[in-house]
């Protein structure tokens, strides 16, 4: 089994009197794709927002590679190699694909004083990445994000995460509002992410999608983690649904034949 990449330990979070997370401990290993499942309001988004620096936990510790780290902002998380892809993908819609891919880390050329962006290099790298990201259409990297479809935007966000060698890519319901084709391309991308040495946390409403791509399933209910080690190859969608809805507390021991 691979070594541990991230460990969130004893995480709790209140919103006023609502306890969104109750002593949750959650780990992701290297090269692992973890599916995070649970009904609406279970606390999935809250948990990953704490990991990506968008929220700060009331208590608990985050470890990376076994060492405690402080994630107090999204900038901290990105520096630690944690990239998050939201539904709205957090791109600057007025800027081109290439300018978005390199935003904040633009390559420069020539004398430092002139601060000149190497737009040619940016466009070349971007064109290659888009192909890898599964955008079949020939979209020039100078196209503004505002004229891309939802799936293409997700692909750009994922391509960015991969290019900058994020160790962990978090996808919170990335396939909502996407068409069938686009959803397939996001799923394909998640699978590729593992092959190229990244870890992923994948949250999706559609349990079939989760079953298609993940190595391990974690289930949350009402702010608590109730199952941690579900192997999608050893169980059925129906059994996992029972756990999510609270009819079962764990997957029955005798796995049904596949």
């Amino acid at each position, binding site marked *: 089994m691979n070594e541990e990449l991230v460990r969130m330990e004893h995480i709790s979070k209140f919103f006023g009197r609502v306890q969104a997370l109750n002593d949750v401990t959650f780990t992701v290993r290297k090269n692992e794709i973890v599916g995070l499942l649970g009904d609406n309001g279970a606390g999935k988004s809250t948990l990953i927002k704490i990991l990506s620096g968008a929220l700060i936990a009331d208590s608990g510790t985050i470890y990376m590679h076994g060492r405690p780290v402080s994630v107090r*902002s*999204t*900038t901290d998380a*990105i*520096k630690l190699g944690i990239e998050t892809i939201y539904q709205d993908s*957090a*791109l*600057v*819609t*007025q*800027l081109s694909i290439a*300018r978005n891919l390199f*935003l*904040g*880390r*633009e390559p*420069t050329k020539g004398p430092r004083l*002139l*601060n*000149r*962006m190497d*737009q040619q290099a940016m466009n070349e790298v971007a064109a290659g990445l888009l192909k890898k990201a599964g955008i079949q259409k020939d979209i020039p990297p100078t196209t*503004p994000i*505002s*004229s891309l479809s939802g799936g293409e935007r997700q692909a750009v966000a994922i391509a960015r995460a991969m290019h900058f060698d994020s160790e962990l890519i978090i996808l919170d319901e990335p396939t909502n509002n996407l068409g069938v084709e686009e959803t397939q391309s996001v799923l394909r991308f998640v699978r590729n992410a593992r092959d190229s040495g990244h870890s992923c946390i994948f949250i999706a409403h559609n349990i079939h999608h989760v079953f298609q791509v993940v190595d391990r399933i974690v289930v949350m209910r009402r702010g608590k983690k109730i199952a941690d080690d579900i192997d999608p190859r050893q169980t059925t969608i129906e059994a996992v649904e029972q756990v999510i809805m609270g009819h079962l507390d764990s997957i029955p021991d005798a796995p049904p034949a596949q």
Partner: protein
Amino acid sequence: MHSSSPFRRFFTGPAASPVGQFMQTFISRPEFGPFVLLILEIIVFTLRSGAFLSSTNISNLLAFTPELGMIALGMTMLMTSGEFDLSVGSVFGFAPVVMWTILNTGTASLEVGFFVAIAIAVVIGYVNGIFVTRLKIPSFLVTLGMLLVVRGTALYITDGFPQRTWSAEGSWIANLIVGEFTIGSIKIYASVIWFIAFVIVLAYMLTQTKFGNWILASGGNAQSAQARGVKVGRTKIILFIMTAVMSAFAGIVSSIRVSAANPNSGTGYELEVIAMVVIGGTALTGGRGTIIGTVLGVLILRFMRNGIVLIGVPGLAYNIFIGAIILGMMALHSWLERRHNAGV
């Protein structure tokens, strides 16, 4: 006319030809609307009044245009980052008052006065920037407050009276920033050269540099830009400072040219400048900006003010035209934007 002439291709050839493609890109650019309007304006004024293109009139236009124009250039950068500055007119009036007061009271030389005035502008821009980015107060309120503070200070230290400025003769700094020369029969001030230099530097900055990308991103989506490591606050503070400094410089240029530093000068410039910038195609909400567009916007409004008087429209009707131009241009830009987002 031989077959590959641009004209023929433009009128008959397929849109995919190089020239057709060029036209296509050109038409979809935000600068296209203002460009056409400017050309129309020049044609109409030239046809209606022989005086419009006379060398005296061109000299006149070239004297005052760069002064407002420099403020507009600074404002373009600031607005692209999603902020704006209402205190520019007051800084335009205040900076020369500081410079001339320092000279006239015998405190120091004109040169020292110049650098003190610019340094004060840096502080004003910095304070604007800190209030907006750290205290998260909207730039409308911050710079409105600053407008009153700066204008009030100018009136207070001068008792409301203009400062004498006749002693600028021969100062190297006065020559450098407003020295005059002639090309043919057209008198040109050095401020035109300064304006052109600013246009080149700022257009380069906005479109070619990393800093320019940060300006666009800060105005487009500050939160995601920040998350990517863009220093949004610092970017905006730098632009507030730049805008204040350019306003101060413009005010000093103007005061030397007209030999007067009036504490009230620059009143109302903030709105005229913002109008110039948005007419040129820069978005009031940030994320989109064009220096070339602003140059066109500046020329459109200056030519309009000058031209309608020449063709005999009462000067008081000026605002009607300006208002109509703003509304028309906004409609055009929003239509282009929607067309663009639809992927055309």
